[in-house]
């Protein structure tokens, strides 16, 4: 029987890792990931897992050790946050190029500088083009379930692509929630035994991995790597469906969750924990007869371009919430993706972008209500009230969106 436990997001992911029982875990502490690995280290110390826990001297080493052991044929994991992820950057691209199905929880935190330890999405957005699948979680329950599913998605022979499962720093990682955990036996059955596609430790099958690759074949290898990402959408859906059927869960199992989108005139698109507050605002507006809706994106890479365009086909105004800035681009990164999804579609909704929550800046229901107020006005005017707005920012003369 599934059990209800009071767990923080970090504890929930550590619980998932306990059930995954990886062969190797490399760990280096960084706030707000630290308590995740601390919890997992308890499981190792208590003999609840068979994992070889490697304590390394930096995140660059953590990712390198994970890559090395995965290439040796062992199911390997690590976890990180913010600057730790930035320090892994070089090895992130090598891991995906070597088609190693590493699953790494990333507890989202603002990148320095100025130095800040609180939650935003600048870390994983910075690592967006490293060839990793990125799956966002709204709460501890989703972080737990996404971590389990990520193993199956990454290890699928058509995919063989590493995955970051993200959870918002502190809001999810340190917030205590009721989490439904599933029994070890069905979880183990769901996860299946790891069958490495190749191993460097078999002398009867000698292999060279990481050979120098010049202009004659580097390009071909990169396009070949891309095939794993291109094949992942179907696997994400299949694994989600199987998880739902096996465990009768009630999370988001597709690319995104469409909440009250059927006849929505205005919609907010959001990633991560802010979906919770947005859903409550939408429900409140609906109770007052306002046709509001929300799309919560779960699979950010691969991005569901066609599906998002279909959801927005009859929407009059849409606001994309971004928890990071894409410097020199058009607002935030999610905004750019949604705009790209709508290219060539008719009619298109009036579109605005709102940057919020950098460095843990609070976002409340009133702020999100303010976004919907803007959208209402945008529909009347036929153009966006703000093309790029900043939520809860002390902006000086230009008044920010005040909740």
């Amino acid at each position, binding site marked *: 029987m599934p059990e209800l436990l009071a767990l923080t997001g970090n504890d929930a992911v550590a619980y998932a890792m306990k059930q995954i029982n990886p062969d190797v875990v490399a760990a280096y502490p960084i706030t707000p990931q630290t308590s995740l690995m601390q919890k997992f280290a308890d499981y190792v110390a208590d003999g609840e897992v068979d994992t070889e826990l490697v304590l390394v001297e930096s995140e660059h080493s953590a990712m390198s050790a994970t890559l090395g052991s995965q290439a040796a044929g062992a199911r390997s994991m690590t976890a990180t946050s913010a600057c730790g992820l930035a320090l892994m950057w070089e090895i992130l691209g090598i891991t995906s190029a070597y088609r190693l199905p590493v699953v790494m929880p990333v507890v989202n935190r603002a990148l320095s500088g100025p130095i800040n330890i609180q939650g935003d999405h600048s870390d994983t957005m910075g690592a967006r083009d490293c060839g990793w699948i990125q799956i966002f979680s709204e709460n501890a329950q989703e972080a737990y379930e996404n971590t389990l599913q990520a193993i199956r998605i990454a290890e699928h022979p058509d995919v063989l692509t590493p995955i970051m499962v993200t959870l918002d720093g502190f809001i999810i990682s340190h917030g205590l929630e009721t989490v439904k955990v599933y029994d070890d036996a069905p979880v183990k059955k769901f996860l299946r035994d790891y069958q490495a596609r190749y191993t460097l430790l078999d002398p009867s099958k000698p292999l*060279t*991995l990481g050979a120098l690759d010049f202009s004659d074949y580097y390009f071909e*290898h990169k396009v070949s790597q891309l095939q794993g990402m291109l094949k992942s959408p179907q696997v994400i859906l299949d694994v989600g469906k199987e998880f739902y059927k096996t465990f009768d869960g009630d999370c988001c199992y597709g690319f995104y969750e469409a909440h009250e989108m059927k006849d929505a005139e205005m919609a907010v698109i959001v990633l991560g924990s802010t979906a919770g507050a947005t859903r409550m605002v939408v429900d409140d507006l609906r109770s007052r007869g306002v046709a509001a809706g929300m799309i919560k994106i779960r699979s950010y890479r691969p991005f569901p371009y066609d599906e998002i365009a279909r959801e927005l086909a009859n929407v009059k105004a849409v606001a994309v919430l971004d928890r990071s800035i894409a410097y020199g681009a058009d607002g935030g990164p999610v905004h750019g993706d949604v705009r790209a999804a709508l290219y060539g579609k008719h009619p298109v909704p009036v579109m605005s972008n709102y940057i919020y929550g950098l460095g843990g800046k609070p976002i409340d229901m009133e702020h999100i209500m303010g976004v919907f107020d803007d959208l209402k006005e945008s529909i009347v005017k036929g153009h966006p009230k703000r093309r790029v707005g900043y939520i809860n920012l002390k902006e000086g003369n230009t008044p920010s969106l005040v909740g």
Partner: protein
Amino acid sequence: MKKYIEGTVKSLPLAGLIEEAGTAKKYNTGTWGTFKPVFLEEHCIQCFFCWVYCPDSAVTVNEGKVVGFDYDHCKGCAICAYECPTKPKSIVMEKK
């Protein structure tokens, strides 16, 4: 000399793997150098320093004796000539 890797995006081994051992033999690195070592047998004392130090296993040995170089794999680094202890040297570098 045959190029080792052949194929397209569709047929290349996954992850840039080379699924065969000893393939360095098939890769002609001998074209890289600007200089090449020339063996002067008359000074050679068969100490094998050149054979030990060559990073590319490009010193050729026949019947227990150093006899010259494998120019398909010698990169012209001159380590052999530097390490050769005889006076005058039994290996001299020549411009290619």
